[in-house]
C-alpha cells in the first residue's frame, strides 16, 4: 500500500528523520533555554488557567485537584492544536523544495507532526511530576494511553494532510484554522468537566472526537476504570476514515503542488 511507502523505504525514513530533527532544531537554535521552552510553556499555561478557573468557578467536585484535571486534558489538546497549525504550513513553508525534487510530500507533513509528538512526550514529564506532587496513583488501565494516542494521531494526521494541501491553494485556510481551533477548544472539555454542561448540549461531546479522546485520557490516567470502549471504537472508526480521506485528498492534489506554490 502506498500509505506505508514512507516507512518501508529506508531512504524516505531517513529523510523523515532528518526533517523531524530540523523541525526540532528550530526550537533551540539561537535561544538560551532552548528546548526547555517545550516544558515551560504548557506548565505556565496550566498555572495561569488553574489560577483563573479555580478562582472564578471554585473547586468543583472533580475528584482530583483541578490543575491535574486540567493538565491531562491540556496535553493531548496542545498536541492536536499545535500539530494542525504547524502542519498547515508544511507545504507552503517548503515551497522551494516542492519545485525542486521529488519525494512523497506527506513526509513534510509527517515530520512536523512527529516533532510535535516529541514536544508532547517532553511535556508529559510535567504530568508525571504533578502526579507525584498530588500523590495520585495509577492503575493498570493507564496502559490504554497508547491505543488512545494512536487513534488521536491518525485523526490528527488525516486533518493535517487535508489542511496542508488546502492551505497551498488558498491561504485563507491558515486564518480560518485559528478560529476553528479556538472554537474547538471551548467545545472540548479541556478546561472544564463535560458534566457541568446542560444535558441538552452534551451531544456536542459525543460527536466531537477530541472530547472523546480527552475524556478517555482522563479516565485511564486519573480514574480507576477502563475507558469507554464504545466511544473509543467509534473514535477509531472515525479516525481511520478521516485519515484515509485526508490521505486521498492529499495524494490526489500532490501532482499540482509544484505548479501552485
Amino acid at each position: 500500500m502506498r500509505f506505508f511507502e514512507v516507512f518501508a523505504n529506508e531512504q524516505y525514513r531517513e529523510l523523515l528523520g532528518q526533517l523531524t530533527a530540523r523541525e526540532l532544531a528550530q526550537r533551540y537554535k539561537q535561544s538560551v533555554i532552548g528546548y526547555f521552552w517545550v516544558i515551560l510553556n504548557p506548565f505556565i499555561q496550566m498555572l495561569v488557567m488553574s489560577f483563573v478557573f479555580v478562582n472564578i468557578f471554585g473547586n468543583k467536585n472533580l475528584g482530583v485537584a483541578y490543575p491535574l484535571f486540567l493538565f491531562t486534558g491540556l496535553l493531548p489538546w496542545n498536541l492536536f492544536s499545535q500539530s494542525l497549525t504547524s502542519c498547515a504550513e508544511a507545504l507552503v513553508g517548503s515551497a522551494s523544495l516542492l519545485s525542486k525534487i521529488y519525494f512523497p510530500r506527506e513526509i513534510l507533513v509527517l515530520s512536523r507532526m512527529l516533532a510535535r509528538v516529541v514536544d508532547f512526550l517532553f511535556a508529559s514529564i510535567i504530568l508525571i511530576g504533578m502526579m507525584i506532587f498530588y500523590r495520585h496513583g495509577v492503575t493498570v488501565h493507564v496502559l490504554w494511553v497508547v491505543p488512545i494516542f494512536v487513534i488521536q494521531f491518525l485523526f490528527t494526521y488525516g486533518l493535517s494532510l487535508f489542511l496542508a494541501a488546502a492551505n497551498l491553494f488558498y491561504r485563507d485556510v491558515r486564518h480560518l484554522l485559528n478560529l476553528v481551533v479556538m472554537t474547538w477548544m471551548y467545545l472540548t472539555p479541556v478546561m472544564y468537566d463535560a458534566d457541568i454542561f446542560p444535558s441538552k448540549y452534551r451531544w456536542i461531546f459525543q460527536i466531537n472526537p477530541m472530547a472523546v479522546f480527552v475524556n478517555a485520557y482522563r479516565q485511564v490516567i486519573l480514574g480507576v476504570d477502563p475507558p469507554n470502549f464504545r466511544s473509543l471504537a467509534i473514535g477509531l472508526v472515525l479516525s481511520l476514515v478521516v485519515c484515509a480521506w485526508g490521505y486521498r485528498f492529499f495524494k490526489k492534489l500532490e501532482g499540482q503542488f509544484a505548479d501552485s506554490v
Partner: protein
Amino acid sequence: MSETPEFAVDINHVSKMFHRQRQRTMKEMLPAFFRGGKKGVVDSFWALQDIDLHIKKGETFGVVGPNGSGKSTLLKLIARVSLPTSGDVQVHGRITPLIELGAGFHPDMTGRENIFLNASILGLTKKQTLPLVESIIDFSEIGDFIDDPVKHYSSGMYTRLAFSVAIHVPFDILLVDEILSVGDARFRKKCNQQITDFKNQGKTIIYVGHGLEHVSSLCDRAAFINYGHLEKVGDPDEVIQCYMDKQEQESART
C-alpha cells in the same frame, strides 16, 4: 518502445497545461458568481505541447529556447516534481537536480548539519553520507566555517556548499539549470571541469540554459523549444543556428 534501456529519459508526446485562474479572491469571485458565471473564468495556456524526446544513456543533452518557452517546465517534468497533462515521462535511473541550489538548507543549522539534511533530500542515508563529508567540505572550500550556521554564509559559500553536496550524491542523470554560472571565475572553472568529468564517466547530463557556448562545447545533442513546441532536435550547432535564426526573425518583426 518506452522500455528500451538505451534511453535514460523518454518523453512521450508530453503536453503540459497551466491554468491561470483569474478570480482568486473573494472580491473578485463574488461578482463573478452573481453575474452567473461558472466557477470563475479560467484561462489556460499550454506550456508544452506534444513534446517527444528521447535522451540516450550517457548523452549530454542541451535544451535551448527563449525565456518562458517551457524549458524549466520540461525539467520539472523530468524531475517528477510536476506531472504532465497528457503523455508520459519515463526516467531510467537516479536523478540529481542541480536546480535552485540550497533549497533544502536550513539557515539556522550549521553547514555540516545541512550537508546531512541536503543529502537525505537527495536520497542518501546518514550512513552513506558520512564517508562523503570530508570530500564535500573540501570541494566547497568552506573550510572552518562549516560549523557555522549557513545564514552567516555569503551567497557564494551557500551555493558552493549546495553544489558540492549535489555532485557527491551518486546519480545516473544530472539535471543542470544555469548552474554553470555559479560562484567566481575560479570555482566556475572547477564546476565545469566536474561536469566534463561526469560526461567522461558516461553519466547522462541534461543541460538547460542560455549559455549557448556550453551547449555547443559540451553537448552531444540539443533541442530547441519555442513557445512550448519542439522546433528542432539534433546536432547542437545546427540547433543553436536554428534558435539564432528564429531570434533574428523575431527581432526583425518587432
